């Protein structure tokens, strides 16, 4: 029972972190119709910038300044890169962001090298918040939950209660009309792209100390974020939230309970073959849930795309 609670908290942390990335990505997608392959690269840049800043001014300034820099970079990418490629169509756009992801990874290696950065949790947060049956919950995790929830509420507030949010929502569905009403739609696009990437930057800043700040960090998370918004339904903020939490919990639970495939198969009445070692399916029988935890999201995504192409919360497209 206690273990379940611990896993719930861990899964929540992972899920909310995913959500901070997928929220920006899905907003960008629904506005501009472009899936930004480089989104997780901005998350990585957030972590690296914050690390470099924290060397001089400490963690908190990093948390404040790094996302700003990342957001400005993101807006620049939209203004000078994407907007140009947009005229060639969607496929080149996707290829562009893909190339950008490669380039940012190389750039990070160029500047900071290939090794992991010693970016650490600040001392004020480096203690155990409480313990559940001997499993200590670090205060930093609580801090991460707090930040993500605060950002989510802020985002929801801006989108539903402010004028800017109204315009953005309108521009999501009717960009032409909004433009005709005299709003500067390209500027809105650039802004949303900047804010989306800045959110990714925040995620990087707070995830860097726990998940590690290294050149592969974007790649590790990048495709999972993609998977998240596809499962949730492209363009749906609630879908992104649901899918993020779902993936967070599924992977956490799969990792912490060691279930073997043979147990499941035996459970549903399939008998383990006697000569397992010669069987070509032998690996299938010995697969354990921690082994496949990281590919569960992909399996889920493929299933979703086959059976419900619009995703959990997506609108059926015509």
């Amino acid at each position: 029972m206690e273990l379940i609670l611990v896993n719930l908290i861990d899964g929540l942390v992972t899920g909310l972190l995913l959500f901070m990335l997928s929220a920006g990505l899905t907003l960008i997608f629904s506005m501009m119709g472009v899936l930004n392959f480089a989104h997780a690269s901005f998350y990585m840049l957030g972590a690296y910038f914050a690390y470099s800043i924290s060397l001089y001014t400490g963690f908190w300034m990093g948390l404040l300044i790094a996302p700003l820099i990342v957001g400005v970079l993101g807006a620049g990418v939209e203004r000078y890169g994407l907007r140009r490629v947009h005229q060639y169509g969607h496929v080149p756009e996707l290829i562009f962001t893909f190339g950008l992801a490669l380039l940012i990874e190389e750039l990070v290696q160029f500047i900071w090298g290939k090794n992991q950065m010693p970016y650490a949790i600040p001392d004020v947060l480096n203690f155990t918040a409480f313990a559940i049956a001997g499993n200590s919950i670090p205060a930093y995790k609580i801090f991460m939950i707090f930040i993500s929830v605060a950002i989510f509420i802020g985002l929801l507030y801006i989108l539903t209660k402010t004028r800017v949010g109204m315009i953005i929502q309108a521009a999501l569905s009717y960009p032409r009309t909004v433009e005709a009403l005299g709003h500067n739609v390209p500027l809105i696009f650039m802004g949303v792209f900047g804010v989306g990437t800045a959110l990714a930057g925040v995620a990087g800043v707070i995830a860097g100390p726990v998940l590690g700040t290294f050149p592969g960090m974007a790649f590790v998370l990048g495709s999972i974020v993609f998977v998240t918004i596809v499962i949730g339904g492209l363009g749906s903020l609630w879908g992104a939230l649901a899918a993020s939490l779902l993936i967070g919990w599924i992977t956490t639970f799969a990792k912490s309970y060691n279930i073997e495939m043979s147990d499941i198969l035996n459970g549903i009445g399939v008998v383990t073959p006697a000569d397992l070692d010669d069987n070509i399916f032998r690996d299938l029988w010995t697969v354990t849930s921690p082994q496949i935890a990281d590919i569960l999201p992909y399996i889920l995504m493929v299933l979703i795309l086959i059976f419900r192409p619009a995703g959990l919360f997506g609108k059926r497209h015509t």
Partner: protein
Amino acid sequence: MSNTELPKGARPEEQITTDPSRAAQRMRAGSMTLTMLPWIVAAILLAMLPYIFTSNSALTIMNQMWITVVFALAYNMLLGQGGMLSFGHAVYAGVGGFACMHIMNMSDFFASFPLPVLPVFGGLFGMGLALIVGSFSTRNAGTVFAMISLGVGELIAACSVIIVAFFGGEEGISGDRTYAMPFFGNEFLQQINVYYLTAFWMLLSAGLMYLWSRTPVGRMANAVRDNPERAEFLGYSARWVRFFSFVASGFFAGVSGALFAINYEILTEENLNTASSGVILLVTFLGGVGFFFGPIIGAIVFTLVQTVLSLQTELWAFYAGTLFVLTVMFFPGGLAGLLMMHVPAFRLGKAGGLIVPYLKTLLPGAIGVLAVCGLVEMVFHVRHASTGDHEMTLFWTTFDSHAILPWVIFIGVAVIGLGIARTTAPALRDAWNEANTAGGSA
């Protein structure tokens, strides 16, 4: 052209200058020799290359090139001809290759046929996987297709460490190509034998893929790419057209995997992963997706650049990434597109007028870019060389990377080179416009 020039209503018959049936015959007769010519030239060239580049390493590089050519062409059946962007195509090549490794290890079966037949099996396995995945992934083009390809790609790549029986886990699967039935007494012990096998299969696959693009389903792939809706109102199901392209592409990807297996006698997770899928996208796009020969150029140039640059600099992937992003932004037609841009000037017989302006702009520009690369290398050296190591070698010169002089020189060359290129660029543009305008003073 103005619309009023159009002949109105029924025209007198005499006005039809070309008799349709005769034109068709002429076209067929002419196109036969014209279309065969490049293939014959390519065959002769492929046969001669080992006499020019005799070393084993050169043969290895060329084999790598031909394998990449097959893979890139297969990839372009999707991207260029079918408009489907795949982020997981390495999987089909990889599975074809892994299947071939297993066949190599089934001694009795492998000894029952000669090695040059093996790629057929690779192709069939690649195709088999494509049949399964394509059955659901080709329902949509665009973003959904790209996402499924990514998901399936990641899934299978991740399986390689789980399903050890087939993928061999971390070590991969290795085998020995020489256990095949001797092919006219040849056991493919030597690199040169493998070269001819690879080159033969490359030419065959390229030829078949070219022919594919001329078949009804190949033409409709283009139609579906450009306007799926219109294609549907012409009797074709966009989904099935995509499916057939996808399966055919899977076959040739599998062939390239088999050629890889024959050449290297080992396959690992690296043959399947997203990085490999990314590389083939990069190669194809750099070469140019708009023309059949684009991926061929891409594969040759990329393999050369990769082998040469990766020996020269640690930063080669950085340069490749930069080049890629710049290509997408400024030359979406890739190298092939750049080449074909010059066709109108050649037709007008004015291409000669471009040579001097090109030299005036591109030469200083290239020198400037090289100097910028030099600066990048120096920054990298200063940042990442072990402390106290101030000596670096660049462009065959060794100097102290912490001294002022080299920096001044490189910055100077970069500024001057790019500056000259900038000032001569308008002249180049004028020359370009002039070369592409019919008639005129020239």
